[in-house]
């Protein structure tokens, strides 16, 4: 079973600040997905990264896949209260999700 560890577990920042959260695996990902879950809802897919070294941008969110495909990061620029939620990474075809990073952006 692939272990997906995310850090930090909790993060509370002021509106306008930048932040980075991480997802690390005990083995190589075939590909990796990032999800965001808002309170009372199910997770929603943000992005899929496939190639080592790949960088994808989604508005103020930048996703990077490590060269060795064992780690990934999500960077948010100028965080807004609407970014608040639980951020989860998942290996595409293994059904398993990471432990999650709970982000709170304070207005």
């Amino acid at each position, binding site marked *: 079973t692939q272990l997906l560890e995310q850090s930090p577990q909790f993060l509370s920042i002021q509106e306008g600040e930048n932040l980075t959260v991480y997802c690390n695996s005990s083995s190589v990902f075939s*590909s990796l997905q990032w999800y965001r879950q808002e309170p*009372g*809802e*199910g*997770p929603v*897919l943000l992005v899929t990264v496939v190639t080592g070294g790949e960088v994808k941008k989604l508005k103020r969110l930048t996703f990077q896949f490590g060269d060795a495909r064992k780690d990934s990061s999500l960077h948010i620029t100028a965080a807004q209260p609407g970014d608040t939620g*639980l951020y*989860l990474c998942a290996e595409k075809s293994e*059904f398993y999700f990471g432990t*999650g990073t709970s982000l709170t952006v304070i207005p």
Partner: protein
Amino acid sequence: GAGVSQSPSNKVTEKGKDVELRCDPISGHTALYWYRQSLGQGLEFLIYFQGNSAPDKSGLPSDRFSAERTGGSVSTLTIQRTQQEDSAVYLCASSLDPAYGYTFGSGTRLTVV
């Protein structure tokens, strides 16, 4: 349907009672997944269906938990003799192809008192 539908949205039950949780996936999605999420925590994988068969039941925490899927569509997760530690949000997801990600329902919040 347009999305994954779960019912009930909330369920309060007494310890020792049986409960059934229902998931109605997106039409045409052949894969269906059940997860459990404790407050503020990540997702714990329970079971996966491909069509009506469940090739991976490894996540079911005990023999009190069972799930079935009929007609390649609706799935029911049954918890027998509920315990307080079963209290959690139970999430269902469906997928046509994992490459396109999973589409989740809003979950059933189960509280065992």
